[in-house]
């Protein structure tokens, strides 16, 4: 069972994962048994009843009510059993324990942001404690997204104008990948994040130290870290190549012409307004697809990113 699981399924790292895997295994194995039965019968008939001449006499028996009832009723029992099993596990997946630790999740093209109760927002990294139920309250800023952690066997759509939730309890510390599984445009497949499971005390420590730049880190380096973590690099290159948005290379101090024909020199004020209110000035030749980072990046974070952009000459 475990061997089969590791062949087909990702590692099981949440309390509910083992239940889901057990049911997946039960259905798969039962299916294989019935399938092989059908296959053997078919191949046997092909061999045994191979046509010998065009005048072969064949059976006239064209129905058997007992047989029809048997092969209808046995599957009915099987599916009701499987349905019930899936139903009870589904309820478990859908009802978060009352003491669950809550994290707010914002999905937007094409990144995730995780907000903690201390006010800190962590872009594209979900930090959680091991052995404690975590409930995610999710919303989308634009189109549909879907929040999926294969290792935890959880998934739920993230919808604009509406809150949806998922919960899980991680059983081992480490990192797992988070995917977006509802198609959302150009960089849908790059809308990745990771969940980092800490031991309880490490999580508390992280929570205390989170938010803001480590004391010994230069501002531009912190900006670089945010550039990778917040999803900027999905659309903005630093080597001059054209992605979804303009490259950072040589950006600072250059003159930018916008889709409405106006133009500005890219200074600190312009970059900050582009981050907080991206649709106001869209550089000519690009689509107005950047989401706002209002409420995700703090003023200090934005200062750091500006410093980083200044270095990309």
């Amino acid at each position: 069972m475990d061997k089969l699981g590791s062949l087909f399924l990702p590692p099981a790292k949440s309390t509910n994962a083992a239940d889901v895997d057990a049911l997946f295994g039960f259905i798969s194995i039962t299916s294989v048994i019935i399938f092989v039965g059908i296959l053997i019968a078919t191949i046997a008939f092909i061999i045994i009843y191979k046509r010998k001449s065009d005048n072969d006499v064949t059976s006239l028996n064209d129905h058997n009510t007992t047989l029809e009832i048997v092969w209808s009723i046995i599957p009915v029992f099987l599916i009701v059993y499987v349905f019930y099993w899936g139903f009870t596990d589904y309820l478990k997946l859908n009802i978060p324990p009352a003491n669950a630790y809550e994290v707010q999740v914002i999905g937007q093209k094409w990144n995730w942001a995780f907000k903690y109760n201390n006010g800190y927002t962590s872009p594209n990294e979900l930090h959680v404690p091991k052995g404690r139920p975590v409930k995610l309250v999710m919303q989308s800023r634009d189109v549909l997204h879907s929040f999926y952690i294969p290792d935890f066997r959880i998934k739920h759509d993230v919808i604009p104008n509406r809150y949806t939730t998922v919960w899980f309890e991680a059983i081992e510390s480490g990192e797992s990948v988070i995917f977006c599984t509802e198609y959302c445009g150009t960089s849908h497949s790059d809308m990745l994040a990771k969940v980092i499971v800490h031991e309880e005390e490490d999580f508390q420590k992280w929570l205390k130290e989170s938010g803001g730049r480590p004391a010994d880190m230069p501002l531009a380096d912190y900006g670089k870290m945010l550039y990778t973590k917040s999803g900027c690099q999905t659309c903005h290159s630093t080597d001059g190549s054209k992605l979804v948005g303009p490259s950072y290379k040589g950006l600072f101090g250059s003159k930018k012409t916008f889709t409405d024909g106006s133009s500005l020199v890219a200074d600190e004020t312009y970059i900050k307004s582009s981050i907080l209110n991206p649709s106001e000035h869209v550089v000519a030749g690009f689509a107005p697809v950047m989401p706002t980072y209002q409420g995700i990046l703090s003023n200090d974070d934005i200062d750091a990113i500006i410093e980083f952009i200044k270095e990309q000459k």
Partner: protein
Amino acid sequence: MSTSSGINADLGLKLKRFVTPDHPEVNYAQAEKGIKAWLTTVDHKKIGLMYLGAIAFFFFIGGLLALLLRAELWTPAKTFLDADAYNQVFTLHGAIMIFLVLVPSVPAALGNFFLPIMVGAKDVAFPRLNLLSFYIYLAGATFSLYSIVTGAVDTGWTFYTPYSATTGTSVVSMTLGVFILGFSSILTGLNFIVTLHKLRVPGLTWGKLPLFCWSLYATSVIQILATPVLAITLMLLVMERTLKIGIFDPALGGDPVLYQHFFWFYSHPAVYIMILPGFGIISEIIAIFSKRRIFGYWFIALSSMAIALIGFLVWGHHMFVSGQSTLSSIVFSLITFFVGIPTGIKIFNWVATMYKGSISMRTPMWYAMIFLFLFTIGGFTGVTLGTLSVDVHLHDTYYVVAHFHYVMMGGMLIAFLGGLHLWWPKMTGRMYNERWANIAAFLIFTGFNMTFFTQFILGAKGMPRRYYNYIDQFQSLHQFSTVGTWVLALGFTIILIYLLQSLGKKGVIASKNPWNGRSLEWLTTTPPVLENFTYTPVVIHGPYDFHKPIAEFEYGIESHGHGHHDASVHHSNEESVNA
């Protein structure tokens, strides 16, 4: 009932035996000549062939797009297409294969050609409507192609809102194309229902109807009831985009989940539009090539109707993680499981039909066996996906992609190929090269499993669908899947070559009943004459009564009146007997 006088007494008709020759002096294709005659024909057989040509063309396009997609996935990130191009290509692949190929494939091509012949009619009930539906299909297809040229659509074939309401690509024209195509589907369904009710020849009771006709009947019911909902949905989408009326887009005050309900209310029954006619073909093939009465005739016939009706009540299983209520999900899951029962009944009855049969493994039978193999896997994985807790993990992953390719391609498309090989001699008068046909079937079976079984594993491991980029650990499985598509492409290329070759000068002439069938299409000439029969057939035995001598299937009554066609193209009855 072994003598003709006994038969006369039973039905109260003046019966005569009509022995049609293998080949007519003038077949349906020769009866009216020239391009104009084809374009304005109301002959169901010619319309069926025109559909066949159009569907084959779109299958070719959709297949090329699939090869592009798989080639792009050879490496993570960019291999040779950029992300936007990839997203447009998978949208077009899906939309073309679903709306232009799978939905019309069997009903509009093979159904149009054979349903009237199988009920002994001269044509469908409304021949002009039939021609109209073909032109509506072409118009819808043109609209769809237009949207390719004017900046392709990148929403996926599901057009989910609010993404489809905000993207800058030409969703409106693509949607209108699909909207127009829906009417073609409705008209075909309407035509078949009336034909089956009103145009069956004497003696052809519902219990003697070939199972292919039963499956088309069930399909037509869904086409008429479900397709208008698709039209409504797409119309609302167009209104939202053009008039800014908030229905689905939350930015305008709409509800995106409502769109999914509308969409799947059509698109789930549409899955059965796509698969039920395939079931019908498989029933015909297994009976003929086992030379045996079909086992459980009524169970197979009525399970199609059961699937058609239950199929309307399961759409919510596409939405277990969409934000619909937990209670809805639970109810939809339970009903979904019950669609599995009539499907299972069919599979068991097909296998039981082979028991104590006389099995001849000719090309159509190979396709029927490939169908059983692939479709059964598709069915079982459908149970996995219908299970609530397991679907949470598998939803929108490659597991779903693999599942519906096993059902749609491994099921419907393989059944279509089976039907094409079963009826090719009847349609064209030529027999294809069976050795090459078997090689092609083997390649398609192998390539298909390489391509799509791999995707079950990818999906279970968590690979999401519609991904241009992927994490490195999936690469070897993706590459294996891609190699499978090349094997598939080789198989389809071989089919194209030997079918075209059979039409050429060296093609082998087929007899009128090469497989020793008993339903009416095997009793007319090859290819059939313009109005199918030179007499009105009278049906005495069931379509699978292979133990009765063929002579007892050849009775009929004199045909009176010639419909709207020129009488000069008809033979007299005596000529047919003497020829």
